[in-house]
């Protein structure tokens, strides 16, 4: 790369002026002439047979354009909801899923009817007039009972509720380790079901041009090209007839990756009614229907020696799939493959994942997806080993870390960890936190009945999906590489198209920093565009799995490289020099050894659209590149949480939080820190506050508003002390790794390790999430008996 001025600098975000002034364009801000509005009637029951639907009154209500039930969509939409292989290639049972229920509803919120009306209010009014007669069926809620032969079934008539049961490695491989062990530590660890809650709920607006047979969909999505693929297929349209535009997106956190029923129904309704149709999700609809994350429990056993060396692990994941299989639901099984964390397990890891259907909304990736669960379980187990052996948890970590000299390191499941220096990050975190002092303060506090706790999380992550050899089979064919197109206009300004799509990450800024540096042009000369399938390359792969920079940013850089190369040929021709003698530096081409013989990049761009080009060269200066990364990237870090638990109320006060993260080279430190802040906050939320609660008998969602589902407010998240180490990834030219999910992957373990540590004087070893006052109060009460 050329001389760096912008990369690595705190460049203020280019997207912010429009966003801070109220001039962003989120889906609900867009209107088409003649728009009609959709409202959906949803099942109030978790599981029921639909006996009848009476739409008579609704059809006659003011402003109603039409009322539609499943059979109206039969000729409009085909196929079933896509379920990717992800980390479970062979599934035992994938229930058929049509976007609207006809005979049976399997979770509360499943769509049974749709109303189109002239206004939102009229659509909502008419939806309330639709009479649906249900025959209630038993709801399957408990993961273990769901596996019993006598259990009712999530779908009537199904053989069982087992979606998958896959042993990556059998228990036999760890037999020797467990025989050799001085101690064996066992724990069941819960992963509370979470709702992603992007502040902008989902929304879809669609317009179908009947005579041109062209469909445009505007929607809040992380993944517009995949939506075009799925929806065009279902509607019987060519992919080329469909355009998906995803404008400003108000957060996603994984919940806007996969297609949803409304993504098919709204376009179908636009085609049926010959009107533009808009639907905007209410918050209650969002909590009921947007895919949830986590919702698992783990049974873990660790074999260790007296000196704290861990030998082997056995882990079984029970995963609540929900009523249907989410498109990337099985991605969450990567928790098993990442269960070893930052440590060496010479005696192996036995891992099994069991996916179980229940009458809840499906789970799918939520920020971190499988990797927070992996960190949480391994970091908890390391602490339990330390506790059992009365060792400092810092020492147990040091003893077992993969060492810097051992990278690239092939871990227990054959994944190759590209780089790392775990102890360096840990040392830095201990220093910032003042670990020794904290331990003294804790000991002193305990004498006075104070429950202070210190928790560590030395986390690692795999992200940047990903190499075609691994990801094409995981999606069912399409490799999760990334594309970019760079167009240099005649006067030298540049438009860059990327197949990733920001939903708050600031790609318009970071990607432009890379391009401006590489071309030696001002930032203002670079425009970054994304989120519209009508622009740029044929296919884009979206933003999730901390992939945008490590895959998409590298693709952009490669496309810029191609432009520079073509420019060099042309510059050599203009300078009457051999191509090999022309170098590109600081935004201009010059002949080696003759710095006065130069052509500025802008001059070359202009010339490329003119006459007299070298023999065989076509006009124009633009390039497309796809980047197929040779490996995933592996960020890591060390987090420390300090808490005090109120001995009377069980309330956890988070007093201090230190995060030292390593995402390789940093393009924009301000944005990196922002990602850590938000990620850590979401994991603190899981650790202390959030849980999707369904009634265990009826399957009714009890957390259907933000009053009941308490995402943390500004009073709940403390200031965070951040620092970084930099271990560049050897996997890509930029040396970058992902950072979008790091905070969420790291932090729940640090917080819960701290809470468990705080309560250790009571003999409490393990605390599940959320560590709410009510849970802790009950645990303390039990321990004091």
């Amino acid at each position, binding site marked *: 790369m050329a001389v760096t001025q912008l990369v690595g600098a705190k460049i*203020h*975000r280019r*997207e*912010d*002026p429009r*966003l*801070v*002034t*109220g*001039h*962003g364009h*989120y889906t*609900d*801000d867009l209107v088409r002439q003649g728009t009609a509005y959709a409202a959906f009637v949803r099942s109030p029951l978790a599981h029921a047979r639909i006996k009848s639907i009476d739409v008579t009154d609704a059809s006659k209500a003011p402003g109603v354009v039409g009322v539609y039930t499943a059979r109206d969509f039969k000729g409009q939409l085909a196929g079933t909801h896509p379920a990717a292989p992800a980390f479970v290639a062979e599934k035992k049972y994938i229930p058929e899923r049509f976007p609207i229920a006809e005979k049976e509803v399997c979770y509360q919120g499943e769509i049974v009817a749709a109303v189109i009306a002239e206004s*939102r*209010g009229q659509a909502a009014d008419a939806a309330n007039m639709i009479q649906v007669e249900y025959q209630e069926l038993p709801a399957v809620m408990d993961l273990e009972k769901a596996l019993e032969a006598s259990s009712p079934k999530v779908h009537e008539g199904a053989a069982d509720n087992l979606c998958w049961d896959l042993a990556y490695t059998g228990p036999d491989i760890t037999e020797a380790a467990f025989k050799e062990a001085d101690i064996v530590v066992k724990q069941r660890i819960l992963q509370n079901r979470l709702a992603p*809650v*992007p*502040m*902008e*709920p989902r929304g879809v607006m669609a317009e179908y041009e009947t005579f041109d047979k062209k469909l445009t969909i505007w929607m809040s999505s992380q993944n517009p090209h995949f939506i075009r693929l799925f929806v065009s297929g279902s509607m019987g349209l060519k992919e080329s007839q469909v355009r998906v535009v995803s404008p*400003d*997106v*108000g*957060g996603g*956190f994984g919940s806007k990756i996969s297609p949803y029923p409304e993504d098919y129904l709204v376009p179908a309704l636009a085609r049926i009614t010959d009107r533009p149709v808009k639907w*905007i999700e*209410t*918050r*209650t609809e969002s909590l009921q229907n947007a895919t949830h994350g986590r919702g698992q429990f783990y049974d873990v056993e660790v074999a260790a020696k007296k000196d704290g060396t861990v030998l082997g692990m056995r882990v079984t994941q029970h995963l609540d799939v929900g009523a249907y299989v989410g498109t990337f639901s099985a991605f969450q099984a990567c928790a098993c493959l990442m269960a070893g964390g930052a440590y060496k397990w010479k005696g192996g890891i036995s891992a099994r994942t069991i996916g179980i259907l229940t009458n809840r909304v499906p789970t799918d990736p939520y920020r971190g997806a499988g990797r927070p669960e992996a960190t949480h379980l391994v970091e908890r187990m390391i602490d339990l080993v330390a506790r059992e052996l009365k060792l400092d948890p810092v020492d147990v970590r040091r003893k077992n870390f993969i060492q810097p000299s051992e990278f690239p390191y092939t871990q227990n499941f054959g994944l190759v960890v590209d780089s790392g220096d775990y102890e360096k990050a840990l040392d830095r975190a201990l220093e910032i936190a003042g670990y020794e002092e904290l331990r003294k303060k804790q000991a002193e506090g305990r004498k006075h009945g104070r429950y202070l706790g210190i928790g560590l999380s030395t986390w690692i992550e795999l992200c940047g999906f990903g190499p075609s050899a691994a990801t094409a089979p995981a999606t069912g064919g399409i490799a999760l590489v990334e594309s970019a197109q760079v167009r240099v206009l005649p006067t030298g300004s540049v438009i860059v198209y990327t197949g990733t799509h920001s*939903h*708050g*990450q*600031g790609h318009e800024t970071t990607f432009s920093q890379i391009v401006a540096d590489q071309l030696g042009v001002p930032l203002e000369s670079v425009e970054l565009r994304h989120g519209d399938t009508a622009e740029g390359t044929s296919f884009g792969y979206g933003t999730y799995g901390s992939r945008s920079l490590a895959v998409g940013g590298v693709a952009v850089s490669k496309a810029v490289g191609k432009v520079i190369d073509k420019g060099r040929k042309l510059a050599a021709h203009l300078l009457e020099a051999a191509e090999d003698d022309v170098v590109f530096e600081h935004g201009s081409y010059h002949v080696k050894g003759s710095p006065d013989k130069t052509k500025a990049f802008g001059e070359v761009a202009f010339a490329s659209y003119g006459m007299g080009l070298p023999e065989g060269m076509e006009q124009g200066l633009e390039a497309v590149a796809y980047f197929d990364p040779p490996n995933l990237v592996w960020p890591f870090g060390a987090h420390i949480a300090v808490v005090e638990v109120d001995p009377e109320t069980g309330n956890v006060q988070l007093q201090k939080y230190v995060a030292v993260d390593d995402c390789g080279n940093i393009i924009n430190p*301000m*944005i990196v*820190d*922002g990602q850590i*802040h*938000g*990620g*850590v*906050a*979401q994991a603190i939320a899981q650790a202390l506050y959030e849980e999707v609660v369904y009634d265990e008998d009826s399957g009714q969602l009890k957390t259907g*508003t*933000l*009053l009941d589902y308490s*995402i943390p*407010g*500004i*009073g709940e*998240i403390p*200031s*965070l002390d951040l620092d970084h180490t930099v271990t560049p990834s050897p996997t890509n030219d930029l040396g970058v790794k992902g950072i979008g999910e790091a*905070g969420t992957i790291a932090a729940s373990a640090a917080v819960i390790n701290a809470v468990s540590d705080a309560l250790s004087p009571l003999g409490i070893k393990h605390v599940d999430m959320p560590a709410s006052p009510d849970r802790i109060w009950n645990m303390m009460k039990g321990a004091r008996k």
Partner: protein
Amino acid sequence: MKHKVAVTVNGRRHEHEVEPRLLLVHHLRDNLGLTGTHIGCDTSQCGACTILVDGRAVKSCTMFAVQAEGANITTIEGMARDGELHPIQQAFWDEHGLQCGYCTPGFIMATAYLLAQNPNPTEDEIRKGLEGNLCRCTGYVNIVKAVKSAAQTMSTAPAKKTTVAAGGE
């Protein structure tokens, strides 16, 4: 039956006939085209729709449009003047106090009210003053920084401060 409602928004008077059940936020967005005021929940938890009504911060989903009859309203679109960002907007930009930007207009308007009441708030007062607004992206760390920074700028630029204290009138 529709009711007449006249409001002054960002200095301009608007008269419309509206249904009595129409929420003020929908009136602003759908009738006046001011889509910078966002909707993030159904239950007045999130504060994305915060605006100033006669100088006071109000979640515009908690008011019917007809209740705003005669009111003087400032929305996020009324904060920047003559192409210059308001110091609070500038501070959110400078301190990276936003990511997806969806909650941001509400936070900026709530901050405008907070700083009008208390031009030099402590961190605790900032956290208390903005407890009615939710953000899912920033962990609030840089929002707190932005509010501190805005307070500082505004206390050294009294003209801008007056604008906010008067609710953008």
